[in-house]
């Protein structure tokens, strides 16, 4: 069973947002990394790029699959997780600890459109 963490916001395309100090840390969920298998590459935007809720900002690749990353919220990328460039497998080790981008959110009310841990857990169950 995939891990789900309380206090995060979840999207239907299996990204999460962790809100800390007003910033949104976006990554893929444990469920998503399980489905994907060994992550070999993370295609990330550049800092200062704009992301829009529901729109693609990058991709996560395994050997035989690739999954687009859709931003759960809108805003400006203030940092990317550079460690993933050399060690993409960190996503498999701990998807929640290894966020992909840090975003200065332009509209925090967008968080209300996302699922909480409980709803997401249900959502994952339905997927199976």
């Amino acid at each position, binding site marked *: 069973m995939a891990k789900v963490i309380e206090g995060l916001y979840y999207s239907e395309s299996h990204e999460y947002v962790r809100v800390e100090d007003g910033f949104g840390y976006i990554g893929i969920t444990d469920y998503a990394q399980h489905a994907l298998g060994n992550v070999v590459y993370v*295609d990330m935007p550049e800092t200062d790029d704009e992301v829009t809720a529901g729109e693609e900002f990058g*991709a996560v*690749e*395994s*050997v*035989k699959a*690739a999954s687009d990353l859709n931003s759960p919220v809108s805003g400006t990328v203030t940092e990317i997780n550079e460690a993933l460039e050399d060690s993409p497998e960190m996503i498999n080790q701990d998807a929640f600890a290894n966020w992909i981008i840090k975003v200065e959110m332009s509209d925090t009310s967008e968080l209300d459109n996302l699922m909480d841990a409980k709803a997401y857990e249900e959502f994952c169950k339905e997927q199976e």
Partner: protein
Amino acid sequence: MNYKYFPHTPSDLQTMFDKIGVKSLEELYAEVPDSIRFKGDYELPEAMSEIEVRRIFSTLGSRNKQLTCFAGAGVYDHYTPAVVNEIVRRSEFLTSYTPYQAEISQGTLHYIFEYQSMMTELTGMDISNASLYDGSTSTAEAVLMAVAASKKCKTVLVSSTVDPKILDVVRTYAHFQDIEIKMIDAVDGATDKADLERKIAEGGIAGVLVQQPNYYGVVEDYEGYADIAHANKALLIMNSVAADLAVLKTPGEWGADIAVGDGQSLGISMAFGGPYVGYMCCREKLIRKMPGRIVGMTCDNRGQRAFVLTLQAREQHIRRQKATSNICSNESLMALFVTVYMSLMGKQGLREAAELSYAGAHYMYDKLIGTGKFTPAYNRPFFNEFCVKYNGNTDALQERLINEGFFGGIKVADNTIMFAVTEKRTKEEIDRLVSLI
């Protein structure tokens, strides 16, 4: 069935029908609506024996004229070592599929790795893919790649000295993706650097495409081009004749980001236009933007070194509409062809063949100018191909040469002819051609 490619005997057919539960071949198509069922006879000849097939092709072949080739324009009559055809015809290579099953495809994967290694050595670049169709489509793919890499810009600057046939293909691809192609002027047969600087300064440029040697055979000076492109966040794409790079300053040394071109000059038959092989090499940071297959090194579960198709998540069978390109097959067998060619010729042989071509072309150029009937078209260095102006009727001259067994160059303007010389051309052939003028 009584045909050599169909092994089914009447008893085989019966056993198979019984297993399937049908009574005839007809019944296997029971679900095809009658209205669209093909019931007639194809308008084709009846089956032919090999003797008859050979006779037909021999008759067709006799309708072609065998000419000694002094033409180029992207396709060159280079020498092919005997070994190359012998290897390429081996059915283990010829009749295999794309090497998806690495365990029984190491032959193919091995030579593609070698091909990639050799192409990067030749071009002075970091990375090569497993080949593309030809020089024109690889150039078009490079243009798409530059636009995809820039994310924001959809204009590419192309030098007016790029082969118009390549430009046509680039324009076709660009049109359908709403990519704008803007031309950079030429001065005396070479790219106008000042015009490049002017046009790139207007902004919005994803890439700059130049050719070396250019369409007119001129070896251009691309000093500073990479800096200009990079200062404007554009990629520099350089198209080159592969064989010439054994001697000429490489795309890597010019600072190009993507090197593309045709590998036909590495001993591949002219074959009326194909198959050839398109090469594409790039800087390491662009590897995941590259179209086409890529072979990488890894190891197997027995601890042996092994080769495998890699970075497949870029490709159409996984990414579908988000793939870097729609390309599926490459020109694998032609990649084998040039790999065996380069293995035999080696660094010394490639250089020697290129130097012979260079010497032959310059000898011919001097001879032609010496007749007093030709004048130089440009005052620029050239390699094994050059343009000269003829002070008579160009068409009549070329027809006269054909009657004497020569394909005497390509007419690139009303009174301008472009000649090419390779290591296959002899001094006698050149002297004879010149004597006919």
